[in-house]
């Protein structure tokens, strides 16, 4: 279970008037208990939804309040939290650091107590699960954008986290790859929190959070929350 208790995230920002740097609010105050299996977070660009996602595995620490994942505080037990909470970025190129898919997945497995052969075997098994067996040994630059995002997912899920947070995982993908990634995420056993602009995907979630100007302005049933978001954006159906 993920708990956010009176969380506020602030940051220093240059003063537009040219004075001293000022503190700006990026998110909060927000208190949430996330227990559903599929949670979608929607909101405009710069609304604070990525900050919310990054809070969940300690990539961003709250300026006030606490974030707990299964009782572990992201500020005090960051490393332990990250072992249990996988994170997938929008741009897979930011996440893939090794020259071939099998080596990139094996890199994730280095923190487990496995021999090199066991790591490679586990990496190949993870790639097979994502339909990348035939691409395991090719240079990563030879993969399509969709295949790279699948590789990023495989690299994160190889260590079997119990929560997966995805920050706009399909934004850079075409319709076909978007469907492939969405179907994969839908089929995962883990609790999945997805930041997305894809309202169809949001409607399939168990719960939707709408973030606007650093505040969670709607939270609950997907149809109601998405309707609120459409109204906020001035978009009619």
């Amino acid at each position, binding site marked *: 279970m993920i708990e956010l208790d009176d969380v506020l995230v602030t940051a220093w920002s240059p003063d537009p008037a040219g004075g001293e740097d000022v503190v700006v609010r990026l998110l909060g105050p927000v208190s949430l208990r996330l227990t559903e299996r599929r949670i979608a977070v929607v909101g405009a660009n710069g609304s604070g939804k990525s900050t919310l996602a990054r809070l969940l595995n300690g990539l961003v620490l709250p300026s006030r309040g606490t974030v707990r994942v299964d009782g572990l505080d992201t500020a005090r037990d960051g490393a332990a939290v990250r072992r249990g909470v996988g994170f997938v970025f929008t741009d897979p190129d930011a996440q893939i650091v090794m020259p*071939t898919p099998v080596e990139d997945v094996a890199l994730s497995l280095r923190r487990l107590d496995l021999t090199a052969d066991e790591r490679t075997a586990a990496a190949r098994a993870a790639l097979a699960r994502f339909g990348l067996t035939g691409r395991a040994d090719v240079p990563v630059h030879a993969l399509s954008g969709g295949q790279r995002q699948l590789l990023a997912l495989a690299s*994160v899920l190889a260590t079997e986290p119990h929560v997966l947070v995805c920050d706009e995982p399909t934004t850079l993908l075409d319709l076909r790859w978007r469907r492939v990634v969405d179907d994969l995420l839908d089929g995962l056993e883990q609790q999945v929190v997805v930041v997305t602009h894809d309202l169809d995907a949001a409607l399939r979630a168990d719960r939707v959070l709408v973030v606007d100007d650093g505040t969670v302005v709607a939270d609950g049933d997907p149809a109601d929350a998405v309707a609120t978001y459409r109204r906020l954006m001035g978009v009619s159906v």
Partner: protein
Amino acid sequence: MSGPQRPPWSGPLGLFHPGTSPVHRCPAPLKLLALAALGLALALLHGPVSALVGLALVLVVHVVARVPWRRTLRGARGVLVVALLVGLYQWWASTWQAAVEVSVDLLALVLAATLVTTTTRADALLDVLARAAGPLRHVGLRPETFALACGLVLRTIPVLVRSSLETRDAARARGLERDPRAVLVPAAVRMVAHARATGDALAARGLGE
């Protein structure tokens, strides 16, 4: 017509060519030891004959490894130019024997090193590096982190090259190809952004903690 486009260079750790040759099957530490021994031998033995024997040895191993020449030469073509220039300088400043020795030694060593990276997975090289860095544990540095940092440095080289080429193209598209600021500033900004994104990605994967 410019022919098929080449894939972007993947850097020193991106040259791996999968295979089942005896060279591929040879353990990574042994290959690195052999590379060190070759370097030592070429440094201690003087004259063009030893240099040519060293190069011939490397070429034989290359044939045994069944690695495509194009792939090897792609990683070593810059060194070919340097070896040629160094050879010409040595010929002018010293003797033709010195020119052959220096340029062929350099070529043999770079080809041997390239052979190691084309027949060894980056993952295996990181393992060797982590084991070799074991003593760093005594000064509070984790060998795995050290190996990962070294691997990232090597992986960042092609990213730097690609980023510079993209910013140069962007500057050209805006008609600013003669303004170095239009290339250097965005390239630097992009590299900092890349470094931060890589750091975030590693942290998110629980690596280097």
